């Protein structure tokens, strides 16, 4: 028994030491101010743009950047509302255009000075919508493997062909941003009534509705379906990492919806000046290049794509963002979507 207790002590001691050593090597006895940045896990991961931004910013700021995974945007917003200053968020990244209304309910944001930023023409339309600022974007489309098709679909109706029955995976619009984008895009294109009529038929073509983009894309990657709704920048991932040119995003005659990712500085920030400088780095050409290459999304400023693999992406037609539905309207539309699914 005595030996066993020593054994237990050694195991826990070893594990504890490993964790403590790792923590000490991470922070040491650092007394610099800490800039707390909330962002999505893919942004702050080892292979995301976060580590580069952190390193570049820490070289000049006399501060330490600490990333926090913001988890789900709804939870993050509620957290910002409830915690206020005690939460310590200085910069928040990772909302899409449909979060903007909720983001302005009960949360104050600092007005940012963006005069010096040379925004891409197509991004300018969303700049006026809120005090939050877009930092990357992409159009969305159906992503396919060229080798699976003799003739590539060119419009939405082409997806209704019998050979694609059970070969399309879509994201659930209640739980996934691309899924919601598709639904609202459809309504924008066809009007609500006709969009739901189309959807009733389109749903019969589906393999399934996945709860998240990653699950849907996983099914596509595992070749269990021929197409999924994703970003037009997704093929770049396969080009860079898999050296494959087989995956492409379809060019649709109807145009393509866009997803913009926003960030901002809450008024309750502790290191507000540093936070604004960090966002400036995010919007700088260097920062944008890293975000583009690591996040596989388009930059929001001009002069970054040139000379990179992103320049080879065809110029897809963007469906202009007209009206963003209010939260209550969105809830109504999603209830209608759920009712449609219920009846199938």
């Amino acid at each position: 028994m005595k030996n066993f207790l020593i054994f237990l002590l050694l195991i826990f001691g070893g594990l504890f030491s490993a964790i403590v050593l790792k923590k000490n090597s991470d922070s040491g006895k650092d007394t610099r101010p800490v800039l707390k940045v909330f962002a999505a896990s893919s942004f702050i991961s080892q292979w995301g743009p976060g580590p580069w931004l952190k390193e570049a910013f820490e070289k000049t700021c006399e501060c330490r950047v600490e990333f926090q995974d913001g988890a789900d945007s709804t939870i993050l917003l509620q957290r910002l509302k409830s915690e206020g200053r005690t939460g310590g968020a200085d910069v928040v990244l990772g909302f899409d255009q449909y979060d903007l209304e909720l983001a302005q309910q009960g949360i104050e944001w600092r007005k940012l000075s963006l005069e010096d930023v040379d925004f891409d023409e197509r991004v300018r339309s969303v700049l006026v919508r809120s005090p939050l600022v877009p930092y990357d974007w992409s159009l969305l489309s159906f992503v396919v493997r060229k080798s699976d098709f003799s003739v590539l679909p060119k419009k939405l109706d082409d997806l209704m062909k019998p050979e694609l029955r059970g070969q399309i995976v879509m994201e659930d619009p209640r739980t996934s941003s691309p899924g919601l984008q598709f639904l609202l895009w459809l309504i924008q294109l066809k009007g609500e009534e006709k969009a739901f009529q189309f959807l009733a038929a389109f749903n019969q073509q589906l393999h399934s509705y996945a709860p998240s983009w990653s699950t849907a894309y996983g099914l596509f990657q595992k070749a269990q379906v021929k197409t999924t709704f994703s970003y037009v920048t997704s093929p770049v991932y396969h080009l860079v990492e898999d050296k494959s040119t087989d995956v492409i995003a379809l060019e649709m005659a109807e145009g393509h919806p866009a997803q913009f990712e926003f960030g901002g500085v809450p008024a309750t920030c502790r290191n507000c000046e540093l936070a604004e400088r960090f966002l400036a780095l995010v919007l700088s050409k260097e920062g944008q290049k890293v975000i583009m290459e690591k996040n596989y999304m388009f930059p929001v400023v001009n002069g970054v794509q040139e000379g990179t693999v992103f320049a080879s992406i065809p110029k897809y037609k963007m469906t202009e963002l007209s009206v963003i539905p209010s939260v209550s309207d969105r809830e109504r539309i999603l209830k209608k979507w759920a009712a449609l699914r219920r009846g199938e």
Partner: protein
Amino acid sequence: MSTRWGLFAFFLIFLFFPYGILLSKFSLALQLDVPELWWAFKNSTLQALMSSVGSFFAGLFLLLGFFQVQRASFYRLWMTRPLEVLLLLPNFLPPLFILLVLLSLVQPFPTGIPGVVLVHIMMNAGLVALLLKSLIENKLRPLVEAAYMEGSGQWRFFQASFGMLRRDLFAIFLFVFILCFCSFSVPLIAGGGKATTLEILIYEKIRISGAWGEALSLSFIQMLLILLLSSVPFQARKNLFSSQNPLPMLKSRVGMVLLFLYCFGLIFYFLSQSLKGWLQVFAVQGLWQAALELLPFSLMFGLSVGGLVAFLLLLTAWGAPDEKLHRLISGMVSPSTALMGFSLLFFISNESPWVEIKWALGFAYLIFSTLYRWGWDQKLSGLRDQIQVANLLGASRHLIFTDILLPQLLNPLAWIASVASLWALGDFALGKIVMGRDASLSLLIETLMSSYRLPAAHALMGLLLVMGCLCFLFFWGIAYVSRRALAEKI
């Protein structure tokens, strides 16, 4: 205050603490959309009912296959115990993993309630098989032997003995029903929008409209329903591991084929998909290093959750037999993960080491009542007579606990603690909210999946399973040494 009341108060506070925090932040919504609630309730009930019935029949077939394996002496020597563990594997693995296997096997996959039921059956059939095995071995062994001598067929035997096992079968059925009723990720993934259950509705309220008050009200309603279900006065013997001696007569070759497919299909699929994943793990710069750095914390977290659950279960044993405590824990359902995670953000500090402690505590909370219902409750109730006799003979609570209860509880305790560890190793939903960074291997896997790198995520899942095995060895080691120490003492 007596020890029992003290324990009851402790568990009451422990089990209601997230609700307490949430109530201090949000007011309960009193006006709910009744048709929507009814629809979700109907779906929850229907899918849970069909899943339980399906798991029951699939479990029975697997069991007959198991008995067939047990009869072959060549296999019996080395295969039965690993088979028992493999039967439980689908219950441990992340639902997404099971779903990917099913999606490649079942084309087209039937989303909606049929899909949810299919995944639930796949996940629970093995568990049911083991529960039925224990039941038959403990209650019917002499009868099976007698029926065999009289020349009865196995289906005739099952028909005749059904009446004797009615209450036990219903208790097992209820256990699976509650598991499926409260399931979240399976209806979310396999439901495809057609099977909105209560758990999904709670999530939707938070995700779509930020209606936290409504989500909390729905959570309370769900808890009341489970409380009602748990008050059904049926008792059964639920024991996962029992005798290794084969029973005569009961067997099925078809069942044996199903058993092997069920047990080895997952492993084979996993290995066949892993190679490309490992290549990617080493190809992505810094990924392997990051995974290695996360191993100590992941292991520590898994062991801590296992230890916490074991500690809580031992507390219930200290107070046993206590009917009111049993009712409280059996009827308790944790709030949905989003609500739980959110409540933890407002509990103590969000700095290290508190945040790690909160995650372990929160996760132990989430799985505690399920694991309590997973045979521990019946194990305790089975010891009731011994405790009463010891009480009559004047034994102290301490003596009863150390000399009577502990030696008999160490095996199930090690088993449940191991399961808790494995579940903890795979958690990313709560960890994502509470930790705010890729602090463990499961969180890293989740991040990989949301950034195109599914093969690497797949491969690292294998590492999680290896760590799960280490946790098993750890808790079984503790149980073994403690048993020996107790035997020496006695």
